């Protein structure tokens, strides 16, 4: 895999940023840190055993890329189809932390009521799509929501955004969805977090083009490749993508290079990632990078960051304590209806 030069905007001067950039940056940074603390808690709950029955899938190292997209979106107006490592993006989009915890803990108070778990959550009627495990298959669904709005005449300046990883770009669903969104010229941002490993499979066994952004040309859409460890670069790219999508320029692909700083899930020690990879530029912790940059720009002081972190930890602890006490599903109270038309649900099996 020959690495293309990574463009970065972090060397720009303060004056290079638009007026609302600082506010958006700090908001994104907040959600990155909230996400990290929340996910550390999820990891701890998983390792402690008991409450979390399935896996735990973390976005460590991908927070800047995910949050930068999430802060472009408005819950209730835009359509968002996040994937596995988008906790920071979900929070930035407006997902309450309780939706995450309730789904991981299977609480009936949550949006999935214990019927689905962990990262498979959303509130589709609010434009927040609930991923299935089949990678790339949410792309066409987000496109369809935008398509329907355009048909109804309610699209306005709303946009859609969905994310995949390097692995999902190899699926037929990704190709079909990307091509269809381009043919329909929908205002859709597709982020590709190239974290270099799809579970354990390296890029060299995943694709053969120079850089995944090369695919954009084939789809006839705008594409950019950025250093996804750099929040300022991520924000600049996603702000541009959102503006172009709103301006009718069709789908936008943003490819971010980074390294997943965790296993595929908490069950995975990621021993397949060689040590030397962990000391590359892409292995930088985006949260450290973003914090130092904010201080250097004079957008926050070291003391602010410490205070904010204390507040985040308190908030996460409180929410975990609250959700932990909430009821889990009771099979005798479950409706067991897979259809909304209940009269078409077949009678109980004779067993």
């Amino acid at each position, binding site marked *: 895999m020959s690495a293309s030069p990574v463009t970065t905007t972090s060397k720009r001067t303060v004056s290079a940023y638009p007026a609302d950039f600082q506010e958006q940056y700090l908001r994104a940074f907040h959600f990155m840190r909230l996400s990290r603390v929340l996910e550390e808690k999820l990891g701890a709950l998983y390792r402690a055993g008991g409450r979390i029955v399935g896996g735990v899938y973390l976005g460590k190292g991908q927070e800047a890329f995910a949050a930068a997209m999430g802060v472009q979106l408005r819950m209730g107006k835009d359509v968002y189809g996040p994937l596995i490592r988008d906790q920071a993006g979900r929070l930035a989009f407006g997902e309450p932390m309780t939706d995450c915890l309730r789904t991981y803990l299977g609480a009936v108070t949550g949006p999935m009521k214990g019927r689905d778990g962990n990262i498979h959550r959303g509130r589709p009627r609010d434009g927040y799509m609930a991923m299935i495990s089949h990678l790339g298959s949410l*792309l066409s669904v987000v496109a369809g929501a935008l398509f329907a709005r355009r048909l109804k005449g309610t699209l306005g300046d709303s946009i859609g955004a969905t994310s995949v990883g390097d692995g999902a770009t190899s699926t037929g669903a990704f190709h079909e969805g990307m091509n269809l969104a381009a043919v329909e010229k929908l205002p859709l941002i597709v982020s590709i977090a190239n974290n270099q490993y799809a579970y354990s499979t390296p890029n060299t066994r995943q694709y053969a083009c120079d850089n995944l952004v090369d695919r954009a040309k084939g789809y006839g859409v705008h594409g950019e490749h950025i250093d996804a460890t750099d929040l300022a670069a991520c924000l600049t790219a996603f702000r541009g993508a959102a503006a172009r999508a709103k301006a009718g320029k069709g789908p936008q692909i943003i490819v971010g290079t980074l390294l997943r700083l965790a296993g595929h899930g908490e069950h995975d020690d990621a021993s397949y990632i060689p040590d030397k990879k962990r000391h590359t530029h892409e292995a930088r912790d985006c949260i450290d990078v973003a914090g130092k940059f904010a201080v250097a720009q004079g957008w926050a002081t070291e003391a602010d960051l410490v205070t904010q972190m204390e507040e985040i930890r308190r908030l996460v602890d409180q929410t975990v304590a609250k959700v932990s006490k909430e009821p889990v599903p009771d099979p005798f109270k479950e409706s067991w209806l897979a259809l909304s038309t209940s009269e078409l649900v*077949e009678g109980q099996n004779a067993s």
Partner: protein
Amino acid sequence: MSGSITYLEAIREAQYDALRNDPAVFLYGQDINTFGGAFKATKNLGKEFPGRVFDSPISEDAMVGLAIGAAIEGARPIVEMQFADFSSIGFNQIVNQAATLYWRTETPCPVTIRLPSGGTAGSGPFHSQSMEAIYAHYPGLVIVTPATVEDAYWMLLDSVALNDPVIYCEHKFLYYHLKSESIGERSLPIGKARIARPGRHATVVTYSAMVHDAIRAAEELQLDGYQIEVVDLRSVKPMDTDTILGSVARTGRLLAVGEAFPWGGVTAEVISRVASEGFHLLDAPPMRLNAKDTPIPYHPNLWKAHRPTVASIAGALRSLLRY
């Protein structure tokens, strides 16, 4: 003859009326706009409803995905698969995205997917399949298999009106061959089977094009003095077990007929339900008749021998009656 309508025209009429009655309806599929569809099931609809009939790329996965996203937003899309066989490419979206959506998120998913199904001579292994059993296996889907002009029309309108994903299996063999004087009044809702022909010596439970072959076989046996009852399932999921059991209670003998491959499937489900819930009603072991366990052949000589026919249904009935 004037005033007559074919099964295919009924499907077009239903889509016309669905588009006319509800602005949330749109059509999405390959070659369906100007061209009017590979079978002309959407003939002129693009002209009559500008901006609501869309040619799609050859992307069954994304076509269904788009329909699901649109349905979440309140649209009621009808997706045309050019042939039922190609729905295998959209399989994941159908069974994992559409079928699970309501259960997982309590969000209705009013998507209708039209599957031009079943064999015609010369169509071969990849333009002849019957997929109803595959989809019926998954929770969260409604599977309809209209056998008459009336049902082709009304069940398509009913499918579009449902707030759940519907797999609408329309039989290609009936497109031009099956005619009716008019569409007729709505008879039964989705989920109810129909006694297509009353009888008292044996019951044939079947659906889609095989209803007509079963009726012809019944007419043949009538010459020998047997009254064969034919039950048209109409929807294979939900399956109207009560009507099946009621028929078997009258006749004591059951033959389940389907054009699909023999392993598992609709006929096996019929037999299983009658065996477990109506064993005491049976005077003979229940029988089933399906296509052969090979891909669907191309040449008419082979094709005719691959699927159940009037002769093979009549033969099976004779064995059943001899028991």
